[in-house]
């Protein structure tokens, strides 16, 4: 048990003072590029045991991907009242980082495994692909008026797209190394906007690794840190670039999108492989900006850690993907 265990125990004493919680084990969870995660086993005074996931910010100035923990907590606690999509119960929040060293959310640890792992083990991933599609179609139908009031709400789909493309122009102005590609792509994307769809809750990291499945009960959707109100097709486009195998979109795009259309009521004009290709550009905007920010910080006094130089390749990869999309769809 590393130093986090005793700190978590003090936190439990503060949030559950009558339950005499003791941290029996606490271990870091490797994987994931953004938050620091740990799994902790707690024995309460009455003898019952529970396992929790602690999900906190990396130390200031380190890491590449940043997100707002307060916003994530607000979203996690609003979702049960807004949608029947299941998420692991969000139990407590160290809002100041006073106890856990940084702002950290404590959630139930589900007795479940990653849908990505299940797909990799399955002889036929088709039914699991359907489950994945249905799950995110359901996410995208969440009533927006039940989401936290502080979530930014664009006026409509076209205005949202305009904002994302303006963001690319802003990035081009700030990061000269990427400017040629970003100017080319944003100009192209303005001229090739797909038909609009209603705004929706977008997960922001749509992949089967963020869906947990157990022997019983509904799938659980995790990692909401990039959740926002935007165009639901961003999630579809984003998933197309996930390299973990199997990628069930590429296994059968028509089946994937046909099922998504049936579940959402969107038309083939609004959702088809070309539109999904386009939305890779839109769905990657926020992450690309964070990669560029991190790359610019390499060599500075507060270095962002090895992930930043490692992910410079991801910037090159995105340049390549974006230009290939422009070529394919022109």
């Amino acid at each position: 048990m590393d130093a986090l265990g005793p700190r978590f125990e003090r936190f439990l004493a503060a949030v559950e003072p009558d339950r005499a919680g003791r941290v029996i084990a606490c271990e870091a969870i490797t994987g994931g590029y953004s938050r620091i995660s740990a799994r902790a086993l707690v024995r309460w005074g009455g003898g019952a045991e529970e396992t929790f996931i602690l999900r906190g910010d990396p130390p200031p100035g380190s890491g590449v991907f940043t997100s707002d923990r307060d916003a994530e907590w607000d979203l996690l606690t609003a979702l049960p009242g807004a949608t029947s999509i299941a998420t692991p119960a969000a139990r407590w929040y160290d809002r100041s980082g006073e106890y856990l060293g940084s702002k950290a959310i404590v959630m139930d640890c589900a007795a479940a495994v990653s849908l990505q792992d299940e797909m990799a083990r399955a002889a036929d991933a088709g039914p699991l692909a359907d489950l994945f599609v249905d799950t995110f179609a359901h996410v995208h139908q969440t009533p927006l008026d039940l989401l936290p009031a502080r979530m930014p709400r664009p006026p409509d789909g076209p205005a949202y797209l305009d904002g994302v493309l303006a963001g690319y122009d802003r990035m081009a102005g700030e990061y000269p190394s990427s400017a040629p590609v970003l100017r080319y792509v944003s100009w192209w994307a303005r001229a090739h906007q797909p038909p609009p769809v209603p705004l929706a809750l977008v997960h922001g990291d749509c992949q089967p690794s963020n869906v947990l499945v157990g022997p019983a009960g509904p799938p659980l959707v995790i990692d909401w840190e990039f959740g926002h109100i935007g165009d639901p097709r961003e999630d579809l486009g984003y998933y197309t670039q996930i390299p973990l195998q199997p990628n069930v979109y590429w296994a059968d795009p028509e089946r994937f999108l046909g099922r998504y259309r049936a579940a959402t009521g969107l038309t083939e004009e609004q959702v088809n492989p070309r539109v999904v290709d386009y939305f890779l550009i839109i769905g990657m905007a926020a992450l690309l900006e964070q990669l560029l920010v991190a790359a610019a910080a390499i060599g500075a006094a507060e270095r962002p850690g090895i992930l930043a130089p490692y992910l410079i390749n991801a910037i090159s990869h995105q340049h390549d993907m974006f230009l290939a999309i422009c070529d394919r769809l022109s």
Partner: protein
Amino acid sequence: MPIVITRPTTDALIEDCCRELMEGILPGLTDETLKLRLIMTETVLRNAAVRAAHEIAWMREETTALLGYAGRVAERHGSEALRAALAEAEAGPPDSLHLADVADRYERAGQAFTAALVAAQEAGDAAMVAQARELLRDRIATEKEVMATYEVVGR
């Protein structure tokens, strides 16, 4: 008398460090987080080796191409922003082969190219936009050469 030790070259030195990390150090690590960080570090070094071997030549070649494009667009659709970017790009010591100077000039050439691309786009000059796309294709080919062995780890 040589002023630097020419062999091994910088890329060979870095590649030797990569071998040391992967064959000499990684097997002795038990902490999964440290293993991951070491693998990422080795990837960065391997990419740096490719860059060390070629980046000055790559940047100089592309600088010439970028400025050529910007000049051609300026002849057709000269804007104040493009002329200023071109003048800026031509400033500085053009013959210096020191990496920082080459990188500075390359970056300014990129800004002139971007200004030219915007001018071509705004003018609706499809032929010049297509030429820009070809130059970007070359740039991506170089970036892919650097990242040839890139694999996503740790997800």
